[in-house]
């Protein structure tokens, strides 16, 4: 198993390899810009360590670790 986005710590970057999620969530994440090869950076963690704030395609997005864990990085 490869690294997933929830394993990144603040300041770390990665590139999306695949999204391993049911159809609906996969479409949602891809619609928000998480397509193959796109770069992501973890900007911040919420006070209790979840959710996380990331930048993708130049904008800021927050998502829970559960959702971040379906995004596989290379």
């Amino acid at each position, binding site marked *: 198993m490869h690294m997933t986005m929830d394993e990144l710590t603040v300041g770390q970057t990665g590139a999306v390899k695949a999204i391993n999620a049911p159809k609906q969530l996969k479409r949602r*994440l891809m*619609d928000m*810009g998480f397509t193959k090869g796109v770069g992501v950076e973890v900007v911040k963690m*919420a*006070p*209790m360590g979840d*959710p996380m704030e990331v930048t993708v395609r*130049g904008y800021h997005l*927050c998502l829970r670790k559960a959702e971040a864990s379906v995004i596989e990085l290379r």
Partner: protein
Amino acid sequence: MQTLALIGNPNCGKTTLFNLLTGTSAYVGNWPGVTVEKKEGMTNGHRILDLPGIYSLSPYSPEEKLSRRYILDEQPDLIIDVIDATNLERSLYLTNQLAELGRPLLLVLNMEDLLEKEGITIDAKRLSQMTGAPVVQISASKGTGIEALQAQIEKSLSEKKLPLCPLFSNFVERYISEIIGDDYLHQIPKGRQMRWAAIKLIEADELFLSSMPAPPPAFKTYIEKARKELEAHFEDDPEAIIIDQRYKVAEHIAKDCQIKKKTKKGFEFDSIATHRFAAIPLFLAIMAGVFYLSIGLVGGYTTPLLEELFAFLGEQVHLIADRFGVFPLLSGILADGIIAGVGAVLTFVPQLFVLFLLLSILEDCGYMARIAFIMDRMMRTLGLSGKSIIPLVIGTGCSVPAIMSSRTIEHQKQRELTVIVTPFIPCGAKMPVFALMLTYFFPGKWFIAPMIYLLGIVAVVVTGLLARALDRHKETNAFILELPRYQLPSPRNTWLQTRERTLGFIQKAGTIILLSSVIIYLLSSYSFTLQAVDAEQSMLAMLGKLIAPIFAPLGFGFWQASVALLTGIAAKESIVSTLSVTIGTANLGALFTSDSALSYMTFILLSSPCIAAISAMFKELGSKRKLLYAVLWQTGFAYLAALLVRLIVLLTL
């Protein structure tokens, strides 16, 4: 008449632009998902629609389905795609999908004023060449570029020029053109484009497939073969391939049209706003500050002044009436009905104005989405979502927009739970009741007012924990939220929003409250045989005495309190006006005691909201049964909590 449709990503400024074009003041804020329903207006003799913000035209989310169905079925004469210019690439992903719908398209680059600060330059001419759609640069919040936009709208409407469809890689295009060549494609509903339909077939889009007759077997086999070949080539499912292709086109256009310079970042408010330890205390401090400024500082100063003013006016009416021998019924209606009732409500206008002003600034500056971010973990333990905090904050102003704003919560159960708990947060209209009771029974005891809000929060927590305990399927769910840029609230916008809400409150005082004050006065002055009688023998007293015994255990089993609660269903401000007509604000102590005053406040705080909020709840819950449960829960909880509060007070004091 021609129709324009405003469409674009959430929080790109569609509604601000809509307000500018139509001269209205529809609700705007700075978090994704403020507009949850389509709004209609007129501009320059054209019908214009403001659609909810969407990232895509996928067949999954309700807003996306609504926008997509609207454009396909209603065939607007012009689609106005509002683009957040600082977020070009992602915006173009939606533009690419809109271009395929076969309607004339106009691109509006909004937030032009922010580009310089962000170090971005956009070549609008090049963008127009690449998309085949005219491009206009504006700043909706500053109000610049609107004339050019209006001129371009007229031009686009007369030209009816279609935009260019984004072209995908050759491998994909080959299948698209083969599918378009098939006879089956001629069966697509009127107004749909062949290319669009072909792409939908490749994606196996559920909504599209269900709108088409069953394909002939040979064609069906062909589509399946094409999907398999695409999957094998790209090592992904066809739906994902298409998204990927669209984003590639968006990347390509964005790269060609914009230059991004690295900007240096100075001090960021965000570093405190979402700080590990400081974030939650800061949020609580900000909310406390909002209430202190509006209720404590401004309200504490203006309320007594206005009370005196209305008392003086009432006396004057009686004096003048006596001198000129006016029929006492008339002077009674005016002084003891209208001035007492409406005045009791109008007293709160200054502090509500400040509350609405501060809330509007909070909503506009981009902080709301951060609150959702920092509170999500905590809210989740209550079976709610981080996004539930937005309705709860807005609910301190008015429950109706608050309940509606819960619609962006993805998960149905969390959304419904949010709808049920939002009215526990006391709205601006409940404030007059608390203020009236507190100043009469607990003068100088400032700490009771915050405890009312605390009690509201406790009710939210208890309901949440209970719902979570009862929920057998503890499913996890999505929480994906764009965090908008912080911005200084635009004075124009803040003023519009604040004025709108304050005027709404005053208007209610001039209509519902006025009418109910007169009716209450008449009902409390006459008996069923239409004899002028003492209040105790009046129609109102008779009616009130029917339900009053229910409240006897709570300590307010007298008819005046019950009648006030009933009128509170129309509007919560009515409680104050009814109490002041039937008892008189200066005589509350004749009937209430400090324990029954506290239990009365508790009951009002937690029981079902006013009729407007109940109908908003109905709309969001979508079923009468769920609404009934919600109202029963709220009222039952209120009754028990009021009983408990009274017992605690009686036992300890």
